[in-house]
């Protein structure tokens, strides 16, 4: 059994629980990017994290290996991250890392060492071959796992998904994993440890990348009300950084990479009743059909809203929502649930939803205007 170990408390406890349950655990830490070994306390890939994972493996009597996966990670995750911002969208690199780096590339390594099972420290559950939400709603990470191939689920164990974070920490202490028990939560994207994604874009695409160049902030009716220093610094639904001075609060409602315009409007303009997505992936068989009622999540930690699968064409899906959702941002994921069961998901691509296709309403996705 191969356990992907970041050096954090969740995957450490996952490995320890499996070892205690009698599994033949092999711990693997993936080195995903290199940022020098001097920055302390980075969530993963730092020397400290590798050392912590190794110490945990030593404690539980499992061999530990470091796999250098910088090249595939850069190819499948970092490059897409930068390109998506360049297209005026807001990507979730963790989804692609799970889909490609962890549950495709790492799985190949598992095959090579005859490890039939793989485990991670994600807060989600696999029951009867179906992905379920983590039991702790505050920690549920199923939103990031919709891109897995369905076959992977039969080989996947997620030992911490059935407990709360507090329980995980308690188990870490109980098992004597002091090196990780009280580690702080990692919130940032691992390769953007300081949260400054513009810096990463500048490094990768150059400081003169269009996504980082000056542009206009315009209202929905085309009035220029200010300037910005790079549309990549904005996300649909964002309020911070939008020029003030209006009577009502303004939010980013669209980003137009062609003209480098950031479109702002009132909160109502953010309400969307429909989501169009691509890269559709179903985690259940048979796949849900058009007309099926589902619950929909359009952002990490956003509440589930009832909806209906309106259209499926190839890898594109359109989902109607029963209640308006605010800030449906292109590049984020839409994940479809049936209660705790995760049915599948896709990458939001709101521009797919042309206003002409159906009668226009004021509550339609404003991003369409882009």
């Amino acid at each position, binding site marked *: 059994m191969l356990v992907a170990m970041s050096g954090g408390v969740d995957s450490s406890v996952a490995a320890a629980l499996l070892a205690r349950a009698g599994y033949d655990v*092999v711990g*693997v830490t993936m*080195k995903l990017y290199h940022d020098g*070994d001097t920055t302390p306390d980075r969530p993963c890939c730092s*020397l400290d994290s*590798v050392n912590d994972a*190794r110490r945990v493996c030593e404690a539980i009597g499992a*061999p530990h*290996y*470091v*796999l*250098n996966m910088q090249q595939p990670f850069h190819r499948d995750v970092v490059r897409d991250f930068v390109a998506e911002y360049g297209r005026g969208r807001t990507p979730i690199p963790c989804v692609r890392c799970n889909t490609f780096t962890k549950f495709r590339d790492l799985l*190949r*390594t598992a*095959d*090579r*060492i*005859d490890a039939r099972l793989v485990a991670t420290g994600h807060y989600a559950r696999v029951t009867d071959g179906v992905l379920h939400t983590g039991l702790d709603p505050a920690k549920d990470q199923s939103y990031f796992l919709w891109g897995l191939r369905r076959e992977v689920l039969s080989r996947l164990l997620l030992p911490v998904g059935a407990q709360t974070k507090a329980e995980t920490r308690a188990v870490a202490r109980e098992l004597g994993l002091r090196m990780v028990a009280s580690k702080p939560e990692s919130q940032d994207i691992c390769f953007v440890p300081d949260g400054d994604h513009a810096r990463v874009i500048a490094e990768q695409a150059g400081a003169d990348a269009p996504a980082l160049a000056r542009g206009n902030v315009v209202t929905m009716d085309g009035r220029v009300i200010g300037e910005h220093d790079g549309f990549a610094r904005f996300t649909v639904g964002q309020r911070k950084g939008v020029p003030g001075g209006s009577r009502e609060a303004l939010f980013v409602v669209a980003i137009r990479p062609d003209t480098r315009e950031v479109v702002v409007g009132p909160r109502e303009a953010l309400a969307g009743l429909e989501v169009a997505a691509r890269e559709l992936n179903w985690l259940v068989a048979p796949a849900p059909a058009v007309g099926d009622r589902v619950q929909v999540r359009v952002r990490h930690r956003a509440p589930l809203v009832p909806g209906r699968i309106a259209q499926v064409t190839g890898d594109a899906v359109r989902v109607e929502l029963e209640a308006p959702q605010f800030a449906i941002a292109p590049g984020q994921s839409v994940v479809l649930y049936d209660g705790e069961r995760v049915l599948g998901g896709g990458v939001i691509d709101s521009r797919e939803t042309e206003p002409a296709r159906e009668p226009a309403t004021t509550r339609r996705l404003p991003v369409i205007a882009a």
Partner: protein
Amino acid sequence: MAGPFYFDHAATTPIRPEVGEAMAPFLGAAFGNPSSTHRWGREARAALDAARERLATCLGARADEVCFTSGGTEADNLAVIGTWRALRKGGRNAVVATTIEHKAVLAAVHQLAKEGGEERLLEVTPSGQVRAEHFDTVVRDDVAIVSVMWVNNEIGAVQDVPRLAGKAKARGVFFHTDAVQAFGKVAIDTARQPVDLLSLSGHKIGAPKGAGAMFIRRGTPIESLFHGGSQDRGRRPGTENVAFAVGLATAAECALREHDAECARLTALRDRLESAIRARVPDIVVHGVGGMRAPHILNVSAPGTDAESMLMALDLAGIAASGGSACQSGSVEPSHVLVALGVPAEIAGAAVRLSLGALTTDAAVARVAEVFPTLVAKARGFAAV
């Protein structure tokens, strides 16, 4: 038959029983400081003096030409940095090393470049031999020191050190050789071979980690890296590690005693392993062939595999090997040696070093010959997905 089998003798070797026995008194009652004038000191001094003489004999050197260090890295640093610093004032500012040196030499050379030295790197042929004509153009009379490793730790390539040292001497250039992998594998005799400095490491020949030595020919200018007392003629201040000096001398004597038989045995095993792998993996790439090779290192790449997964799978199958030089985080990085040989990146990334030694038996070779090709097939099968 299941092992585990140790094929990483180039990384380190088990301590010889004779070495442990020889050191034991100095880890116990004979704990004196060799610089003390009382009986405890005299006892330690006598053992240290004897160890120095015994090691000198093993090298064809005089006792005063042996300097004990903490290992190969310190010896390499002392040779390259110490000699350059002593000679730079005299107008010899350049320092030369091959592109396939151990990091202990390369990083020392880079350090000298930072201190104002001129760094010149010697090219090697695809089989890992120094290009003689390049040596002649690079090693001129503005060079303080040239460093050429006798046996390469990754591919086992053997350099013609006596000849290169002779050429350097003819230009007034001091010659250092990193003989960490060479001792016990090639004939070393400083009385006949004109090297000026030679590095040794204990744990490659059955002494403990942390034991090392350097041969420094009389008259070779050298500046100490450390500052302190006058131990080892001031070349290496600090209270001498008597136990390790005794251990190193004992290990060196053992290695020399078994030199001929062990080299023949390892060569036969290495050849058998190589041909067995070749038979089942016909497109296997063996690195460092075509020139002189040390008997204990077999470095191979199976195209379409990657070293990390192979090493992991080998380890889990009970076979300990290694890849390129390991970086800090324990992850395998492409080897600078294979890159210098002109090996394409994807082949270099598949390189697995199997190094033979005291623990290598017929059964161990048979096991690797069986497992390695199987793992290659498995890796290739899945790589196609």
